[in-house]
Every structure is written in C-alpha cells, then in structure tokens.
C-alpha cells in the first residue's frame, strides 16, 4: 500500500497508508489527520482538503485542472504547489508523496 507523509503546521510528520485507488484525502480522513476536513466528501466543492504538495512531488502529481485551480483560490494559504487532496488518487507511483497541511485549515 503506498504511503503518504503529512507535514503538520508545527513541523511534525505523520505517515498514512492509503489504499490503492483511494484519494489522498480519504486516507488522511480515515487516520484523522487534523485539518483535512473534507466537508464535501471528495466532490471538489469545498476546498477543505487543501494541501501544499512538496515541490518535487508536485512534478509527479501535476498542476490542478481549471475548476480545481479556481476552488483553490477560496482556500487560504494557497501556495505554488497547492492541490485538493481529494483529487489526488493514490498509486504506487506516489508512494512517499509529502504534503503540508495549511495552518488555517486546523
């Protein structure tokens, strides 16, 4: 099972095993990662699953499609490598992906 690393605003790190085919959000939610609220349950509507992807991993996951990019504008602390974690589907290629949880989402 691929693993994702969530870096919390205080610098601590949590590893989450995400079943293949689940979104990063679903894995984080199951494990209770603070700040991944996911109000819309992965519908790309709420932006409460926003994460900032580590720049090297951002090249692998790629830039968001237009709608997601618009939605990210609603999120605070949007960074160059922001993504909605519900729109990142885990595969073995993403094993080890590191993302940061924005402080304002806590």
């Amino acid at each position: 099972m691929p693993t994702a690393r969530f870096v919390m605003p205080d610098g601590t790190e949590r590893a989450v095993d995400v079943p293949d085919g689940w979104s990063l959000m679903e894995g984080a939610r199951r494990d209770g990662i603070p700040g991944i609220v996911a109000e819309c349950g992965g519908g790309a509507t709420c932006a409460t699953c926003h994460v900032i992807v580590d720049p090297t991993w951002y090249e692998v996951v790629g830039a968001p499609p237009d709608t997601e990019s618009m939605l990210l504008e609603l999120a605070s602390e949007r960074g160059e490598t922001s993504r909605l974690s519900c729109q990142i589907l885990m595969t073995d290629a993403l094993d080890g992906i590191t993302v940061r949880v924005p402080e304002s989402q806590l």
Partner: protein
Amino acid sequence: MTTKKVVLVVGAGQAGSEACWALRQGGFAGDIILVGAEAALPYERPPLSKKFLNGTLDAERLFLRGPAAYADAGVSLKLGRRVVGLDPAASIAVLDDGERLAFDWAILAMGSGARALPIPGIDLAGVHALRTMEDAERLRAGLLKGGRLVVIGGGYLGLEAAATGRKLGCEVTVLESASGLLQRSASRQTGAYFEAKHRAEGVDLRLGASVARIEGDGRAERVVTADGTVLPADLVLVAVGGVPETALAEAAGLECRNGILVDADCRTSVETIFAVGDCANHFDPALGRHVRLEAVQTAISQARCAAAAILGAPRPAPKTPYFWSDQYGVKLQIAGLIDPSLPCEDILFGEAGVSFAIHRIQGGVLAAVETVNRPVDFVRAQKLLGKPVDVAAVA
C-alpha cells in the same frame, strides 16, 4: 485532586463526530464520550443516495474516521447504544441498557429521521426509507433486481435515488405533490431543468400527484394516487423529507420548535447542553433568524461552534451554507440561503437547459447562488454572496 470534565455527545453522525475532533483540536483535555444508536462508526450520508447506492463506492470509504483515530484522540465510543433519558438538572444521561452517564456538558447531535407518510400500506415489504447505510444497502439490493421503482417525494433525496434507479436499469416513477420540482429549495429555472432532465432520462415524473395508499399482498405491488391512478411497483421509496430528532430533548424540557432551539453558539435553553446538525434550529447571527438545515457543511460548522463555546474560545467565523446534488452526472451546487418569506429576484447566466448559474437576489444583495454544471461560476459567485447587486445593470 481535580476530576476530569466530561463532554457527552449524543448521536454519532456527521455533527457528533466533528464535535469530538473540534474539542480535541481546541485542547479539551477531559473525557469525550460519543454515543450512537447505529452500530457503525460515524459515516457520511450524501453518498447513500449517490455513489454508495449505485455501488461505485464501498462502505469502507463512507466512514468519517477509521477506528484508530478515535482511540488516538481518546474518544470513548459507545455504538449501537441509544440515549433514552436526559436529566439536565442532574447532568445525567441514561442509556437504553440502563447505564447512567454523568456529564459536564452534553452535545445533542441526533440528526433527523425520515418523515412518516401516514397512508395505508406504508408497512408493506418493499417500502423503503433512505437515511442509513443499511437502508441504502436494502434499497440497492432491490434496485439491482430491476423492476419498477416508485419514488414518493421529488426532493433531492428522491430525485437522486430515481437517477440511480434509472442507471441500474429500473423503470422509475416519481410522484411529487407540488406543481414543480424543488420549489422550496431552489429557483424555478433549476426546478424546471431537473424536471426536463428526469423526463429525458426516462423517468415518469408526475407533478401534483398525491399518494392515497400502497397496495399489495404482503408486499408492495402498486401505488394508488388520490385521483385513482394505479402505478404498478416492485419497490417504493418514501422520501418526503426529514423531521428533526427532538423527542429526547423535548422530554428533558429543552425548548424545541422545528428542532431543538439553539442560540448562535448552539446552546440550548439549558446552559450546559448544546444541539448541532439536523436536529438543531440554530439562530444564525449573519441572517438574524433561526434556520434548520439538513446539510453536511452546516452540521460541521455547528459542531465547531458548540465545541468553541465549551472551550471558552471565540465563536468560529460564520461560513456560508452550501449544498450539492448529483443526478445523472449533473452537478447542482447551491450556496447561501433564501428567506422564503421575502420576494426574490433570479438572474440567469449561461444556457438554461445545459449549464447555467442563477443569482438569487433579495433586498438588493446576492443571497444565494445555484449552478448546474458550472463549478467555476459557483466558486466565483461564492465570493460575491452577501454583496450588493445592481439588478438593473446585470439583468
């Protein structure tokens, strides 16, 4: 020695579980007990009429948190247990097995139940409601057999189930007593869009239809309307709205009116007892009136309000309510709220039958926005909510 404070959360659904996380994240160090009548861990309900019903999302992905998360956060779960009595003066709750739990604060998050339809035949086999995971599993098993589904009630839940029924190959009839769809919750244009969409997808949609009875020999075989129309049925779904779960609160003497009445902090008429989610009729300070909504975002916001009040923290900034619905892959998104007692002016952007946005204006400000297949416009319009609109300029 100081004794630990206890928060008792009654109802392990969307609002109840969020209250637990909000308390812990806010630094609450006492005990948190979460009591839920359903045996399952807290899960999200929206997919029950959408992807879970059509079988594309499995149960494991509905849970709001995995079991380990509760243990890690020190939340004691009492699932499959119901709170049957509440004594506000003594701060004690009684469970169905007689256990008594003392609390310093209680958060009532008991949700809503399916509104009953008092007609003959309602208890026949094959007549379904749709509130829980088990309801959805039963309904899906019926839908997978094909056959004829009659949906009573053309609200979001009924319409989503109808769309799922079509997708799974059922013949579907929808009976709605009003003269149009979604009249109370959406604009005329949006209602008309979904009317046309369901008809185009082969649903036999009957407006102004009032149901008289369900007939059958032990099992539902037909639905009969007030004008005598007989509709053959293998399955019937009753989806005529939700009623707030208030019995426990009423028996405890808490003030209730269309839900448990709560103030801006989600506090009930008893200082130490809060109510959140579907069961609460909340005073919304931004709107200046009480509103009771059945929506995930509302449940979450209210849970956080109650947690903040218990923690003595400032009340979280209000968030605009929003809601969504998926039918045949069409995405409807609604943000903001209309005051049904005031006139409303709707302005359409885009193409009425295809993809569009409706800006709903009340008292000169953008009160709500609806979009059909226009997620980008939805995001844009959300930023304008509550702001003045010059109707003459845009119309």
